């Protein structure tokens, strides 16, 4: 009488391990991948605030707290997009940038050392690595 190498309970155990590992893998990627609704605000290359594209709000960075600013600076989330809505810079170059919800077009305000970035996987969402300005 032949004897099987693996019996039914062995296959159940192997299947459980494999399914469990796949579930953990999927959870890991889900938990650690940033959604493109998060907005990060950088001042002098330091993360100083985060905003939610799904929640209308205005963030004010005051010159008193951030001395490299030319003056107080306002960042507004409205209708799923973020924009720099009040600032002081030569020819108001910072607030001229169109409101954005794209991970590929951060709002760059060099005179005030501020960058506003929509976080997410640009490659997955738009198939692009970068957008040239």
């Amino acid at each position: 009488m032949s004897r099987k190498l693996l019996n039914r309970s062995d296959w159940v155990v192997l299947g459980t391990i494999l399914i469990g590992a796949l579930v953990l893998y999927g959870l890991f990627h889900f938990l650690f991948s940033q959604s493109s609704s998060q907005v990060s605000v950088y001042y002098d290359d330091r993360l100083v605030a985060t905003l939610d594209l799904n929640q209308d709000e205005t963030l004010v960075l005051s010159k008193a707290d951030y001395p490299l600013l030319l003056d107080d600076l306002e960042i507004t989330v409205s209708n799923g997009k973020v924009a720099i809505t009040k600032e002081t810079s030569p020819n108001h170059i910072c607030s001229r940038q169109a409101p954005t919800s794209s991970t590929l077009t951060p709002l760059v305000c060099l005179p005030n050392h501020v960058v506003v970035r929509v976080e997410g996987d640009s490659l997955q969402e738009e198939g692009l690595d970068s957008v040239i300005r």
Partner: protein
Amino acid sequence: MRKLIMGLCLFLTLTLLTACQNGGMQMYESHFMGPFDTQFEFRAYADSQDTFDTYAKLVEDAFTHYHELYDQYNTYEGLNNIKTINDAAGDHAVEVDEAIIDLLEMSIADYHTYSSKVNVALGPVLSLWHDARESADPQVPDADSLERASQYCDIEKVQIDKEAKTVFLTEAGMSLDVGAVAKGYACELVKNQLVEAGCESFLISAGGNVVSYGHRLVEAKPSSLSKVLPACLNQFTVGVQSPGDGAYANIANTVAIVLDGQSVVTSGDYQRYFTAADGTRYHHLIDPETLYPANYMRSVTVITEDSGLADFLSSTLFLMPVDEGQAFVESLEGVEAVWLCNDGTILYSSGLVEGENFHLYVS
């Protein structure tokens, strides 16, 4: 035997679900601002965060160094740079870093080989426009001032002694302005340093300049773009931003370009400009023949392997009529270009093929 088989299966399962499946390589990214008045984005494949951090530090340090060398507005202790050369115009030669000598020699050679539209000795004219843009109350420079300044822009009076590593502007009043070429040239230098450091695949984005090396080491996930441009799954791909106003209002991206180790540089009229009292916009790309901003197009993007050449050619093409630029590009091997015309028309050179290495978002 049964335990051995179970153990092997468990081991294989764990191995398949770890980072080992791509040889341990994954893409990391970092960003920083400052050098060349630009926001930098750096993406590279590495086997660990530590390795990537080493590359990222190399990139930031290198660009900071080249920014200081090519700076015409500020001096730095212990360093002779473009401003040092300008301050000594008509007086004495200045000993400088080889990177300055090489940039100037390349620029002067390109001036003679390709076009006299980009003149690194146009400093006196460009500084008048720069001062106007930076002023709290911008005024258009008057024609007489521009004409007088243009008398001090003879590129043949830039004297380079390669052996002594010196540069001498032989006439007082002369000044160098390398803004049209310096960032692209620096990108090429940094690219070479990264390759030498062992970085196999990377992309650096510096505002209007992108330099790439290698291909994706991990295939990208399907996207809306990959349906029309499958090559973007395995090769770095960049978009060109729309000017966002005029004929390009309500348009985000205009084209997508697949790179094969190439660099891309865009010159456009919508980033650095001032608006005069009468509502006329004056941008920063000045035609050396008219001494005023050129208005043949909204932007031009050049794709070629060498980033320094891409920067020089994009500045050149912006300063010539579109049809002249098209003929010029077709005469050059290994160079492609995209023009965003004033009326909203998008033109591109023959080496860019829809669906192969190029996609036009707006038809």
